[in-house]
Structure formats: C-alpha cells, structure tokens
C-alpha cells in the first residue's frame, strides 16, 4: 500500500515538472502562434485582438497557473488551430479523444505481436543446437533490427497491400464505422512496428537464457536428472525473463507514446501526427497535453514493469 502511495506521489511530481518544462520550452522557442495563424501581413490591431482572445498578453506565470488549474479541473483548454465550427475552437479533449484510440489500438496490436512472436522465438533459438538455424536467425534478426521503420512500412505496404491485396494502402477505416475493418487495417502498421522489436526481444531473450544456462542452479537441476527441456522451461525461463521484462517495458513506452513515422506512412490519424503538427503551428494547449500524456504513459508502464518484476523475482519485494 505504502508502495502505491509512493509511486503515485512520484507520478504527480513528475507530471508537474514536465508540464513546467514544456511550458518554458514554449516560451523559449522562436515563433509566435499569432503570426502563424494570421500570417505576417495581418494588421497590428487584429494581432492584438487575437492575443487578447487567447490570453497571450498576460505574464507567463499567470498563463501557466490558469492553464494548470484548468487541467486539474479536467478542462484541457482549446486548441489554437483546430476549430470545431465557425465561431468555436476545438477543445483539446475532443481533439485528442478522437485520435488516442487509434494510437492505443496500434500500440496494443504491436505489443501482442511482439510478445506472441518474440518469446517463443527466443526460447526456441536458445534451445536449438543446429548451427544453420542459429546462423539464419542471427542474420534475419540482424537485418530486421537495422531496417528503419518507415522503409519497413513501405515494404509492408507493397508486399501485403499491392502484391497480396490483403489491405488497401491509404484506405484507413475509422473505428466508428467498422471496428473489425479498423483492426484489420491496423495489423499492417503494427507489423512494421513489431518486426524490429521482435528481432531485438528474441535476441535479448536468447542471450539472457544462454547466460542463465551457465548458472550453478542449472547444474543442480541437471544433477537431479532433469532433461534439457525441463531445465529450460522449469528453471531457466523465469530467471531469464527478468531483464527481458525491463526491455519490453522500454519498448511499450516507446510504442504507446506514438509511432510517429509509422502513422505517417500508413496515413493513420493518431496522436503522433497530431503532435508534430501542433508543435509546428505552436498550438500550445495541444502540445502540452500530449507531452503530459506521453510522460504519464512512460511512468505508468514502468510502474507495471516494476510490479511484474516483483511477481517474477521473489527477491525484490523483500527489500
């Protein structure tokens, strides 16, 4: 219980510090949202008026306080750039709420692919004594790790979209319209995200298992008359998973935070694209919330990893 309270306090402190840092960054970076909305030719009166409307004429401290108190109350503010209709700007909540499911589903699918493929692959690889299997896997994973994801995206689009017609490239299906179709479309971007990570995780697990195989307790297990299979699954796997869990945690954080490039390549309306465009247009309210979201996800995933770690390794919860 104490542990959870501690974690939550850390989470809140981190979110606060990150929000201040992001706010300050926006003060420092060159560029002005007013000029970016109205262009350089606008009359000064109009600029002044817009500044007033957006609350930009107030000192930074006041602006931050106003924004922060809104966020605490659940009001995330309105976008500077996206409008809902003629005379109303789009609330950040609605803007992100629309795009978040896309990113989250993409992340979930990628993660499922990674875990389902990499763990059995890593174990089989560690078990194999065949030199050719070893060399082949070594080569394949090496290449998969090296290929940049945008190129992999193009490759997947070409192979599955154009050659095999398994999906229509560029034909994004909204989850409002057809959820099954949406998932079917997402499978391919998820694949381009997952392939390099699968290669990394499988390699990592294999090395971890081979290291564990040299431990004293493995020798003990053999001395009892355990078969190699039993030693691998009964003794080594759980110990070997410990570093892999940390590694997977880092990967999850990276994916959930938005696979920007892959979203671009497959034309997905996720938050990765939104983040880029909002930074470009100095859309402060949107950027700030997105940064907080990413921070939250990273911390939360590490928290989950921490718990998982305790489940796997009984030595940790003792301390």
């Amino acid at each position, binding site marked *: 219980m104490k542990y959870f309270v501690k974690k939550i306090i850390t989470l809140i402190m981190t979110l606060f510090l990150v929000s201040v840092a992001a706010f300050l960054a926006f003060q420092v970076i060159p560029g002005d949202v007013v000029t970016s909305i109205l262009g350089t030719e606008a009359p000064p009166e109009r600029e002044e008026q817009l500044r007033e409307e957006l609350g930009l004429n107030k000192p930074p401290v006041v602006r931050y306080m106003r924004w922060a108190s809104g966020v605490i109350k659940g009001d995330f503010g309105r976008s500077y750039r996206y409008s809902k209709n003629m005379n109303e700007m789009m609330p950040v909540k609605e803007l992100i709420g629309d795009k978040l499911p896309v990113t989250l589903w993409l992340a979930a699918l990628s993660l499922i692919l990674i875990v389902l493929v990499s763990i059995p692959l890593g174990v089989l690889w560690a078990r194999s004594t065949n030199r050719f299997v070893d060399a082949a896997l070594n080569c394949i994973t090496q290449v998969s790790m090296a290929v940049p994801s945008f190129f992999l995206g193009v490759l997947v689009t070409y192979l599955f979209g154009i050659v095999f017609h398994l999906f229509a490239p560029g034909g994004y299906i909204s989850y409002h319209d057809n959820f099954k179709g949406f998932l079917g479309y997402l499978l391919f971007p998820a694949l381009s995200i997952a392939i390099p990570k699968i290669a990394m995780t499988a390699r990592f697990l294999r090395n971890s298992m081979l290291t564990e195989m040299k*431990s004293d*307790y493995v020798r003990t297990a053999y*001395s009892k008359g355990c*078969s190699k299979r039993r030693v691998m699954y009964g003794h080594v796997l759980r110990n070997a998973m410990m570093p892999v869990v940390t590694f997977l945690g880092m990967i999850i954080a990276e994916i959930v935070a938005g696979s920007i490039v892959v979203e671009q390549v497959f034309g997905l309306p996720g938050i990765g694209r939104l983040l880029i465009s909002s930074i470009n247009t100095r859309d402060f309210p949107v950027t700030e919330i997105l940064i907080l979201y990413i921070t939250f996800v990273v911390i939360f995933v590490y928290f989950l990893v921490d718990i998982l770690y305790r489940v796997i390794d009984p030595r940790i919860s003792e*301390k």
Partner: protein
Amino acid sequence: MIKIENLSVAFDGTEVVKNVNLEITDGEILGIVGESGSGKSVTALTLMGLVSETAEVTSGRIVVDDCVLREAGKPVDKKLYRTMQGDNMSMIFQEPMTSLNPTQKVGKQVGEMLKLHTVLTKEEIKAKVLETFEAVGLRNPELVYNCYPHQLSGGMRQRVMIAMAVILHPDLVVADEPTTALDVSIQNQIVALLKDINTKENNSMIFITHDLNLARRICDRVAVMKDGRIVELGATEDIFLRPQESYTKNLMEAVPSRLKRRVSAMKNADNKEPIVQVKDLSVFYEDRGSNPFAKKVRKCIVKNATFDIYKGESLGLVGESGCGKTTLSKAILGMNMITTGEVIQTTVRPQMIFQDPYSSLNPSKTIGWLLQEPLRARGILDPSQKMTKADMEAAAYEMLKRVGLEEKYFTRKPSQLSGGQRQRISIGQALITRPGLIVADEPVSALDVTVQAQIMELMQNLQQEMELSYLFISHDINVVYKMCDRIMVMKEGQILEIGETEEIFAHPQNEYTQTLFRDSL
C-alpha cells in the same frame, strides 16, 4: 560399487584429468584433495555426467554396479544418466546460494527430485520433503518449505541442498567443497551432518576439498590429485602421517596447523610502541531504506572497541562473518563512516590488502600502472608528495622485486598472472607508499595451500624488512595462529578477548572463543 578406470578428460585437446583410477566401496567416504586446477572437480563432474559438453573423455570408463555409464569413444547415454542422476548418485555443491534456483521455493526444488524419479502424489511428495528437512536438521520444516533460497541462511541453504541430495537415498553422494562458503561453526555442523548421514544410510561419499584438515577429519581414504593425476591414494592417517610422494609431503608441510611451532616476528617484546591507538571506538551505519523521507536508522556495527596495535606486530582479528571485522578495519583506515571515539595514528595512512586478488585489481591496466596508482593518488591528495614519472616507475620496479616478481611482469595485465602472483601485486600496492600499518582482510583465503604458505612467508619477510605492523583479518584460525603475535576475537560488534597468541590458544577465557577454537581443530 563405483569404478573409475583409467579415466582421462580433455578440454579442447588439453587433458585436465589423466589416467585416473578410483574405486569407491559401499559405505566409505573417499576424499579427493588437491589444489585448484588439479582436476578433482572435473573428475567428479565427469562421474556425475555433469561436465560441460565441450569436455571429451579420451580414455577409460566409468562403471557403476557392472553398468558401464560412460566409456571413451562412445557417445554419452543421456537417458541412462538421467535415470541415475539424483536416484543412484547425487551431488552437493559449494555455493548453496547460487546452486539453488532463486525464483523457486526450496520445497518445490527438493520435491522435484521425487517428481522426476518416483510416482508419488503431490501430498506424498510434500510429506517426504518435510520429513527429509527434519532429518537434515532444519527446524520448522513447514516454514522452510515455502521459503525462497534468499530467505534462508547459508547453513540452512546447504542443509536444503543436502536434503535434496539424500532424499532418494542414493548409493553415492558427491560433495564438492560443501563447506568452503560457510562460517567455521556452521562448517562443523554440516560436516557432522554428512558424516551422520553416511553412517545411517551406509552410502558412499566422495568428499572433494582443498582443506586438508577437513579431509583428515571426515574421510576414510584420501586421494591426492595434482595436474590431473592421482599422486597418492591411501588410508587417511597414512597419507597425513606417512606421505610417500614428495608432492604430498610438500602439501602437508604447507597446511597451517597448530601442531607446528610458531615463530614470532616481534623481536623484543618489552619495547612496545603503539602505532595505532583505538580508544572507545564505535562505528555506525545510517540507513533509511529506499524511502527518502523516512528517518535514518542508526545501526551500531562495532561497539566500544579499545585496543592498540604495536610497531612490528601482527594482530589477528577473528570472528564469524557479519561480526564487524571489516567495518572495524575500515574505520581504522579512515574510510568515511560515522564513528564515535578515537583512532590515533602515528604513521602514514594505513593501506589494505584484499581477499580476492582476481576482482580487486583493475583488469584493463598493467601491473606497472597498478603499482604506481597509490603514489599518484597520494600526489593528488598532497601536492608536496608529488613524484616524477621516472621516480614512480623506479619505485614500482623496486616493489616488484620486493614482492618476488621479475621485471617482465611490469607491462603485463592482471589476467596474465596467477592468483598468488596477483596477491603479491596487491601487497606491493599496499606497501608502495611505505605505511606503518597494513590491514589485510582475508589475504590468503582465496589461495591454494602451497600458495597460501608462500604469501604468508612473503608477508612475514616484508614485516621484518620494513618494520611493518599487520592487522590480519581471517576466519581461518590456523592461519591466524601461524601469522599473528596477538589475537583479538570479535562477536556481534564487540571485542570479546585480546591476548598473546600462545596464551589465548592455551587458555581461552571466553566461552565463544573456546568453541571457535575447538571448531577449527
């Protein structure tokens, strides 16, 4: 009956076991003694079928009850081995902490033996495990059953290992240095337990050890191994009292023993000049766990220590692990800790020699660089003592000679040196700033007996030449007996007794001292 006939084992073409013949009869304890690298472990692991797959049996065979288990030139019958391992022969390893799976409860790990070799139900397995736990002297077996290895003490873990090894009543138990990682008093309990099991079960046992005193106490017969060969094999008392081979004689000579007379390094005992005075010293650790807001908890590690170390003497410090020996020595060295009381030093900063020469030397530097490092550090701390590069090099060469190594070692890396040579370098590092006091923390514990004897001799010679004082920390009472003029006994942070070596051995005042000395005999 187990027969090892003309067995040779090679790794990458180099034979590490050469033409070994051994016969183990029912009910006997056969000791295999020898220094590290003598092939004693490889012989046992080959017998058990646990030697790594890169090892090749180049000649001979292993026969267990007329069944040929392994023969040169024939592939290993893993299936046959698996039925024998655990059931007919089992093994106890040196390090019970790492030899148990850290993520599995010990009850399940012991139960796995029964799961593999019997058809008992879950409940029957548990009952049998609890019964065996009780038999190996684990109090509260029910509680131990659900513990993970890290929740048990070293002695308890080794008892769990023993329970695992004997639960199926095998014909042969191989114990590979089963007590080396344990404290002296626990060592004795474990040895007594093994002997007890041997008497009750009438099984055979192979007892591998580098500790000759231990072998003498437990074994019926002893085989002495050197460079992969058995040099001598015979009844224990014959080997110890009437060794035939010169190697065995040397080995027996090197064993530190209380039966041999001690030569004190103190020349004139009247003229005692204290080099370090410790007055009412208490040492604390502050700990607040992982919570940055929690109040610090002060733990007293050393309580009110008062003693002097005289010029030119060796003061032995003995006690079990965790008694505060190392903490006390660090406080004398001035390594930042919270202390009360006084430590008055009359010479330059004391230096330290560590236990493990393998890990205490930076592997990426040359010996020359390592020897000069204390001089460089001193030059930075105190610019007036700064030396030129040539001077430092000359000092390093001189020190190399002093510790008995040739000049060619100057440019080598630690990995190219043997354990004894590395410990010589550690000694050289400690001496190069010419301190009056050296704190030696188990300096010979990681070394083989013959090397141990050489290092102790070197330390004694250097003491004479340079008028050094030693604070000599060791858990090996016999080593302390050989090295030290006075002995200080510690328990739970307190100094129980301090006195002249001969005197304290002859008439230990304290009960704890008495048991400690008796246990180490």
